[in-house]
């Protein structure tokens, strides 16, 4: 019966080698959670920074959850994509972070990675674009063993999330 509001924004991203970035995001929760209102996934606009190297999206996130348990606390997963000069999109990084569990505003930095692929794919990526992507996007936030996955670091996505919790104290959860 407790409620959680997640209100904030995806501010932007730094550290990507590509410019013209956009971000697809989604929130994944456990079975105990119910989304009362808001959209749990979305996509930002493409930002091409003119000054500096930070791409600003300032994409709002506004979710209202009801929960009957703490398991499956909401987690955010992100996909940063880049658009090249031909308007083609390619993956620049997968990222994942938990939504903070204490009330208040939080500045989050979510580092990202992307699959490296074989040397052929790397070569193709360097010259013709595209790149290996996960066949199953939920690998990003599921607990699968990823030790066979070779990845390259991407940049960092910056988020600013405000948390409002309600009625958690009623069930003995201090926050």
């Amino acid at each position: 019966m407790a409620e959680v509001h997640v209100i904030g924004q995806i501010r932007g991203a730094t550290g990507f080698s590509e410019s013209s970035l956009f971000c697809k995001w989604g929130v994944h929760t456990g079975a105990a959670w119910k989304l009362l209102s808001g959209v749990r996934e979305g996509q930002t606009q493409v930002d091409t920074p003119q000054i500096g190297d930070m791409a600003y999206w300032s994409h709002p996130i506004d979710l209202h959850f009801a929960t009957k348990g703490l398991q499956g606390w909401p987690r955010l997963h992100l996909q940063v994509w880049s658009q090249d000069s031909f308007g083609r999109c390619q993956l620049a990084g997968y990222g994942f972070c938990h939504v903070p569990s204490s009330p208040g505003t939080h500045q989050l930095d979510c580092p990202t990675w992307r699959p490296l692929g074989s040397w052929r794919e790397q070569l193709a990526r360097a010259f013709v674009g595209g790149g290996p992507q996960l066949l199953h996007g939920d690998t990003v936030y599921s607990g699968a063993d990823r030790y066979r996955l070779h990845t390259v670091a991407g940049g960092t996505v910056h988020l600013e999330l405000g948390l409002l919790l309600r009625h958690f104290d009623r069930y003995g959860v201090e926050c």
Partner: protein
Amino acid sequence: MNPKEEKVKIITEEFVENYDDSEVRRPKTSKAQKHKRKKQVQKASPEDMVSEKSPSDSLQEPSQDDPNGSLLNVTARRSQRSLPPTPSASRTGFAEFSMRERLREKLQAARSKAESALLQEIPTPRPRHLRSPREKESETELGTEPRAEVERTQQEDDSQSNSRVKVRRSARKIKSKTQVPPGYPSAEEAYNFFTFTFDPEPEDLEKKPKSKPRERRNQMEEEEEEEEEEEEGQHPMQTRANKAVTVDEEDVLGRPEEDFLLDLGPTEEDFVAVRPAEYQSVHTRLQVEDKLLFAPSKHSVPMYKKLPENVQPRFLEDEGLYIGARPEVPRTSQNIMENRLLVQEPVQKWFGDDGRILALPNPIKPFPSRPPVPAQSQDVKRELETLYKKAVKYIHSTTQHMIGSGDSPVNFQLDVDISGLIFTHHPCFSREHVLAAKLAQLYDQYLARRQRNKAKFLTDKLQALRNALQMGLNPANPHKSPNLTPKAISEYKSEIWQTRKLRDAEQEKDRTLLKTLIKVWKEMKSLREFQRFTNTPLKLVLRKEKVDQKADEEAQEAEIQAELSELLEEHLMEYEEQLEVYKAAQQRWKAWRKARRAKKKKKKKKKPAEEEQPQEEEEEEEEEEEQGEEEPVKPVPPQPTNRAALEQQVRERAAQGRRRPGEPVLVPELSLAGSVTPTDQCPRVEVLRREDVKRRSVHVKVLFNHKEVSRTDSRPLGTDFRVHFGQIFNLQIFNWPESLTLQVYETVGHSGTSLLAEVFLPIPETTAVTGRAVLEEVEFSSNQHVTLDHEGVGSGVPFSFEADGSNQLILMTSGKVANSVSWAVGENGIPLIPPLSQQNIGLRSALKRADAISSIGTSGLTDMKKLAKWAAESKLDPNDPNNGPLMQLISVATSGESYVPDFFRLEQLQQEFNFVSDEELNRSKRFRLLRLRSQEVPEFRNYKQVPLYDREILEKVFQDYEKRLRERNVIEAKDHIDTHRATVAKYLQQVRESVINRFLIARHHFLPADLIAEEEVPNISILGLSLFKLAEQKRPLRPRRKGRKKVTAQNLSDGDIKLLVNIIRAYDIPMRKPVASKFQQQSRPSRTFIEKHPASPATQSPAHSTDYPLDQVRVRPFVEVSFQRTVCHTTTAEGPNPSWNEELELPFRAPSGDYSTTSLQSVRDDVFINIFDEVLSDVLEDERDRGSGLHTRIERHWLGCVKIPFSTIYFQARIDGTFKIDIPPVLLGYSKERGFDSVRSLSEGSYLTLFITMEPQLVPGEPVREKFDSQEDEKLLHATEKFQAECSLKFPHRQCLTTAINISGKTVFITRYLKPLNPPQEFLDAYPNNPQATAELVAHYVSLIPFLPDSVSFAGICDLWSTSDQFLDLLAGDEEEHAVLLCNYFLFLGKKAWLVMGSAIPEGPTAYVLTREQSHYLIWNPCSGHVYRQFDTFCPLKSVGCLIGPDNVWFNIQRYDSPLRINFDVTKPKLWKSFFSRSLPYPGLSSIQPEELRYQHTDKAAASELQDRIEKILKEKIMDWRPRNLTRWNRYCTSTLRHFLPQLERSQGGDVDEDHQAELLRQLGDYRFSGFPLHMPYSEIKPLVEAVHSTGVHSIDIPNVEFALAVYVHPYPRNVLSVWIYVASLIRNR
């Protein structure tokens, strides 16, 4: 010569001395020296490897080419490397100087020496002799100067020693050639020395196996060199000299050094020893090596070595156990390994039971001993797979938005292969068939059994068990099988016993089966003979396989003996056991007896002298006692086993169950080789039967989720009752199938089809993919009872083979369907299996499917116990890795140690940590409200503020919603009166809901244009225009309306939007007739259907009555606009052509405060513009009061109405024009003024000029941005796009339509809608001679079908066209459907008809119908049924975009588009651009319309019932609307009106029976009367009520008013109802 000789002498002397010294020193030094040597070797070895060759190079090469050069070379090298670090520069300088001097001297000396040496050497080549001393010498030398040696490198050492050797040798050659020094070891000794010295220290050798041989090799090389030199010593004098020189030089160099270091002062000869290269022949070396090294043999090892003694190799594979694939290793490597293992570790653990090296992991081990090898990419986990995706341009695909669910709908495919059908019993089976089926079945069984060959398997097993037991019991090697405990033995025995029993049973079964088979065959043969014809080609052949009788007998005998012995053993054991028991019992019994005896004795002793009687009594007592306590029965000793009897038993059994020895093995073979007797040779009954069979055919229906999806062709039943279909059905599905059923149908002749049986197919596993699926036979049977009058045995009917009718059989129709069900494989090899088991790809779908239960599925088998039981029964091979997980599971399940829950929980401990239960969470009203609001459920879509606490939310908030949910599926006929309409309404409602839901989702997808308001960048043209504007007049004479800024409907709220209605003027308003004229013949009333007879245009009104002065105002009209129950009205004007020029402002409220585009689009409110006549009547009752006040009553009489739907205003943004006022056909008390204007007299009717708009202007909803899929030809679709693009380029505002979307959302080429369709027959019969009247009747009929704008029902997003039959079923549609139907009717009537797409007032873009009469064109409004001539000024059609015929589409490319000004001759290509032309001929598209329309007559009774109900409801409503006044109903008037209405219907509102009207007026003479009939198509009650309300009849509040209301419903075919409502108010005149 002298000095030289001297020197040589000195050298030799020294040498000799040295030698002596060394001899003396030798024992001392030898050991130390050896150590040194070792050290040296150790040190040197690395460099040694590098410079192995260099010594010889430096010696030989230079010697051959250039002595000087080489000399210098060597010198240089020497000086560089061998000089000790300490000597000063002067010393070196001296050395160099002296070197040159000596060089010259020695060169000479060497020459002479060499000469002499050569002379001496030739005859006595004795190299060997000299070796050992030299060796020793060198050793001594090494020993004496260890420090120097240590500092030198091996290379130096080698080369030095080489050179030294040579020098010495040459020196010795000179001096001591012939001398054999006493005490020198002989050649043999020398040879032995090598081997000898090495032998005692084998461990050293082993430690340096590399360095030693190398040393040896060095020596060998030296030797070889030596020999070479010695052999060819004579020829190159030069060489020798060179050597000598080298030596000298060496000495020169060596000396100072040695002098310096050792301070010994000997000459270099002391240290130089000439020794032969050491050589060891290969053979000897190998011998040595053989002793030292161990080389395992390459030969294969005999089996007995590898296995424990007396153990036979056991091959598991032959026993049927699973053996994995051994890794590939060459045979020789294996042999080597085996040999090595046998020698080094003679433990047997390296070898398996089959005598080979263990190479495979033990599969039974629970944990693998080897870590998993990270395999190649194919082993990568599925969820970690990556896919290289090309960089793709992001396309704003519109189709994606359409479906709503983000992921593209993947079609999954299930392939159902129905290959055939075999009847195992069929009513048409003859007796022979029955037997044949039985035979075939038995044969199948036999084949199956033979394939499994269980008897053989069991026999083998028995054999293996016996062997094992034998081995275990063998006392010869008890230590080899220590694990064979007595317990194990007993287990073995019991196992043997069981196996034997099983084997016997199997063998017996085999035998009986064979017997039955033969028996059935015999029966069949006799039957064939008896009936003298053959029906089946079946033939059984018994093939005999000869067996060697003797071997067979022996084998059998052995078997029997083995069995016997086992049995004996068993019996023996049993016997022993029993004996044990017996003994124990005996003991007890004896003890008991003893005790009793003792007792007795005691008693006897106690009372010896007692009388008889008491004794007897006592005895009795005792006996009683004995009886009381249990008396052990005297045990019977067990019978020892009778061997003979046992043998007899065994033999009997063998005889029974087994083949007799020597008896040939019988192999039955069933063939279809027999011939069937031709029909003409059969008796009659059989002929009948065959004919019956021929008449029958069978087909199979495939039912998917209980719906028939396809069926096979109907195939005739063959004489063999087999049907081959061979059809594969590809079922495209979206969801996981629930059920899959086959239905077998049988058709007999033409009579009918009957369902034989249903076959339920299992849904295939996800692994069953097409190509891998196996054809399975599924049995079915039916319980139908069939009795036939011919030879066929029937089904469910008893019959018998016997003549006397005994032994009856009842067979049911049964059979087998051969089928296979599998999942199809997509193009890229992905099986097309629904996502229940397969996760979809992509972010969105992944998000959706994050709910894990859906991905895991519930189909998993979870009954652990059953599984374990099954596994135990099926005797899985535990070795097979395929069974690994299962075995593990079973071990867990059967061990009982770990608790296996019978449920599966995805998130453990979830339940325990929950705050609240699900129910409680769902009960929360707040959450529910929030969710519903965010789901945009209509009731809550714009719910603004949700209370913070549950208690603040009232329960009734949900009432409406819940009610709606409840009633969704309940069809209630209250509002709808007749059930058909109710169903249709429900259907429409559902379609609407689903469409709305689709678009609700689509609404959230925005285009950039939705979000960004981009100001246009000013360019030069805009600049120029604005400059031009400066010069414009400030106040133009003819001002034009400016475009306003459009407002997106997002931030609006109630009251922001206003509807502006500007009423300008009206024409031709009907005028009051004076009361006085009531008895006069009334003029012809005005007509609604203008131009009933266009051919005869002059419809004159009768002469005006001249009673009224022209100046008298006979009408005072005003306009009232009502919208959403808000009413505004204008001031009252006077006269029939009033001019108001007033602007009315009406507020607009969107439904539930939702001002979004979608919501606005679906506003269904209409703007009613009613025209009333204001009548002032005198209410003064007393004439005397007239002077003191005004006593009039204002009455208003409804004259007519214009109805404009809000959606039109919304989409058009403004409505501007002159509209025809909808005036009822009869307006009592009013007539039209005529004669003033001869022009206008042509047009019957009244008109109103209006301007309507919204403030602020709203942005109308975008049309659907989506492409529908289509079944049209790709080329055609392309052509339509091209055509439309061309047209819109030329005339962007003209409507051009080539495709339409049908009700299932598919694009259809538009001409497919047009096709001649029959109107109801009664219309054709009505006016057989007047086609025009028929056409009007048809148009009237079409106009009676209720109008329902698509934009409303489908949220304004797309315009769906339904076909005419759908339209008639739904009984609702918009202009297009009406127009299509009307056009089709006209085509049927033989007219040339087209669909006109254009825009009209007030509908906006619409569809009309154009017909061509003999000389002119007529334009039909399909929704109202009105017809206009082409040149009619008041034709509502204002522009024509395109014409659509049944075979072509023409686009208007004329300059004007008003129908008045265009030419409708479509044959002129300059005026009309046709779609199909010579370049693209008409392909002959088939119509999507039905062949013909079927009409059923509407129930008259239902219509009259409806009529009564409507009347009742309307009366109630009118009374409701007059809450403050009494409503009286004038029954008489009502009944008069009721009689009048059918006439109106008959004349379609036109020719009213004027007599009747006059009569009406006469009858109601003393009433002031105002009233009118309303005519509407019937859809629901609500619009009727609305229409009555809008007339305002009820608003008369004169106290003595009376009302009359009559309703008439006229039924037309197909439930089309025409409703007439006559409302009148009567005021009694006094």
